[in-house]
């Protein structure tokens, strides 16, 4: 910006001209009344207000104590070796203009480099770099370095618009202010940075956790994630559907805190999901995840547990990597799954992940959790896991299990974040009644339910295959022909009496005989798979197919 016409243009005086380096003085010289004004600057709670508030307080106190026209704080930009005007009173333009002074140059630059107090009696004839000081009509300046534990963090200076000789008492006061404020500035700065990181990490955490859990009939799922009171960690969980109607349940914990841990957590969660849907079993999935982690530069260690449930058979396959063993809640109480402990991810080059094959029977709930839920200072881990098992034992659903687990969280919050995820193999009712939407995409789900139900009724593998085929054809008929094009529902009822399976599919469309090549073939399949098939007009006008088959056993 060109200087305004009436602003005198000063030639910059030679380096160091007009600057008087003052020897430090003892704080006892400072007048007690004024020193009292500066006391509050060392109050730790002040720095928690944030950097802006802290600096504002510092400006006010210094101005009052020294009775000066201007106060300015420049903070060190370490990377660029510059001082940046960060807060000012009377010379606010400094901050607005983003004044930057290279270390070693001018007034403030020299204070920073030599770590000395400098007094300038006559600004007009002294070496200063910042033209704003002259433009504001400042006559005299006094500045001191801001030092924390031997590190320079900035410069604090005061100015007078009338010629003033800053004396030893003034210097002592300014030194006291600098000594008291410097740690506070550093703390507030760190606090603001952490706050910023905490916010980012929270945002990241939230965006990475699944928004909706897999919605499968006959399966109950629930989860909780609670951040630590002051830091974000790397805990995560996941629940997803796998090919063939299997369900994946995963949990993990990245060692460390903050944004980096949260980001790594997101990568691990995504990678695990990717390996899982490619069809890898739990043990192999964790081995691949380990390789993935170790391929990253500067990887951190992490723990994880991953299980695959076949809802049809209740077969549960589990593998862990340095993670706490999952728990199973059944009618008799809660117990830990007896899985061999293994090393965390990132701990060994070739970690083998043995799998545990177990059964999650109807009504049983699998609970996975991170150590944040059970680790309490002063309490042995085995004891707090015992407490967890006792606490969750009465849960009748996955949701209740999570609810009860969260009750273990102390009122004052958690030191570490925690995640808990639960999956229940729910009871299948005696009579299977479904009211699916008349859409082709519903068929797979209906088949999964009828297969589970048939298995519970004691049907053999072949019987399950054949009856499922027949049931699917009846439902496909309802979907294809019963309605068009408006979406609607149909009913599917399956019951069993002394080994006789009866399936009734009723749509509420208009009556029509199944026809077309597809349906013809579908009818043939139903006829071949079942003992009897009856197609008739339903009471309300739609089509009703009733089929029976006697089970062998």
């Amino acid at each position, binding site marked *: 910006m060109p200087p305004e016409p009436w602003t005198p243009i000063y030639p910059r005086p030679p380096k160091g001209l007009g600057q008087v380096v003052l020897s430090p003085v003892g704080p006892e010289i400072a007048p007690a009344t004024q020193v009292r004004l500066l006391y509050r600057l060392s109050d730790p709670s002040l720095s928690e207000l944030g950097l802006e508030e802290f600096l504002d307080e510092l400006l006010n106190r210094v101005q009052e104590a020294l009775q000066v026209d201007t106060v300015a704080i420049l903070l060190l930009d370490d990377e660029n070796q510059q001082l940046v005007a960060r807060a000012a009173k009377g010379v606010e333009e400094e901050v607005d203009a983003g004044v930057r002074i290279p270390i070693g140059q001018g007034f403030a630059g020299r204070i920073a480099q030599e770590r000395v107090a400098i007094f300038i009696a006559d600004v007009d004839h002294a070496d200063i770099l910042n033209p704003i000081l002259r433009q504001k009509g400042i006559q005299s300046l006094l500045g001191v370095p801001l030092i924390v534990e031997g590190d320079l963090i900035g410069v604090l200076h005061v100015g007078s618009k009338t010629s003033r000789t800053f004396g030893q008492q003034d210097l002592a006061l300014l030194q006291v202010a600098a000594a008291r404020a410097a740690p506070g500035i550093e703390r507030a700065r760190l606090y603001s940075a952490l706050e910023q990181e905490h916010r980012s990490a929270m945002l990241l955490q939230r965006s990475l956790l699944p928004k909706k859990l897999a919605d499968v009939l006959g399966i109950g799922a629930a989860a909780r994630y609670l951040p630590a009171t002051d830091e974000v960690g790397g805990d995560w969980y996941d629940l997803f559907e796998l090919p063939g109607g299997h369900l994946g349940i995963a949990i993990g914990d990245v060692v460390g805190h903050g944004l980096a841990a949260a980001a790594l957590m997101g990568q691990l969660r995504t990678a695990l999901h990717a390996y899982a849907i490619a069809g890898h079993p739990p043990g192999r999935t964790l081995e691949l995840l380990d390789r993935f982690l170790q391929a990253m530069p500067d990887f951190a260690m992490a723990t994880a547990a991953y299980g695959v449930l076949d809802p049809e058979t209740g077969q549960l396959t589990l593998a862990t990597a340095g993670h706490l063993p999952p728990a199973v809640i059944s009618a008799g109480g809660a117990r830990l799954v007896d899985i061999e402990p293994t090393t965390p991810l990132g701990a060994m080059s070739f970690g083998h992940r043995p799998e545990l094959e177990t059964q999650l029977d109807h009504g049983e709930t699998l609970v996975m959790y991170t150590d944040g839920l059970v680790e309490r200072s002063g309490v042995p881990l085995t004891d707090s896991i015992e407490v967890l098992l006792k606490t969750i034992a009465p849960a009748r659903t996955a949701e209740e299990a999570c609810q009860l687990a969260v009750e273990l969280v102390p009122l004052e919050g958690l030191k570490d974040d925690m995640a808990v995820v639960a999956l229940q193999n729910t009871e299948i009712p005696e009579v299977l009644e479904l009211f699916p939407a008349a859409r082709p995409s519903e068929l*797979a789900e209906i088949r999964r339910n009828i297969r589970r139900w048939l298995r519970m009724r004691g049907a053999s593998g072949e019987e399950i295959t054949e009856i499922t085929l027949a049931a699917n054809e009846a439902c496909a008929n309802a979907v294809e022909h019963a309605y068009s094009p408006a979406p609607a529902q149909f009913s599917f009822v399956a019951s069993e009496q002394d080994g006789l399976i009866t399936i009734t599919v009723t749509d509420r469309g208009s009556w029509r005989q199944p026809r077309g090549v597809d349906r013809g073939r579908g009818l043939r399949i139903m006829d071949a798979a079942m003992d009897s098939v009856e197609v008739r007009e339903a009471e309300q006008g739609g089509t009703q197919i009733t089929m029976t088959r006697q089970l062998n056993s």
Partner: protein
Amino acid sequence: MKLADLEFDTQDSTTVAKITGEIDLSNVATIRDALTQGVPNHALALVLDLSPITYLDSAGIQLIYRLREDLRVRGQDLVLVIPPVSAANAALRLAGVEHHIKTAPTREEALAGLQTSD
């Protein structure tokens, strides 16, 4: 979750397509399109490996018939790989069409059968 997945492998004059997962009314149309597009013009035959299939119904059987028609127009042969005990076999058997479609119990036998018929 996608019900089925499809993998192609073309060698010389034969394309092998393997389907995993389930085939029903909801995905027959996309599978048929993918198969027709996945067989290059220079291929003489498609070997459709249905051995990993966990479900196939009348819509899937219809897909096989239509696919055979699509390929016939281009002068291409279709052989299905269907093991004797499999979900695909159950559907073909119950629909009474297992003898109307060219099948082989393994992929190797399907490929060998094509070579001898050349």
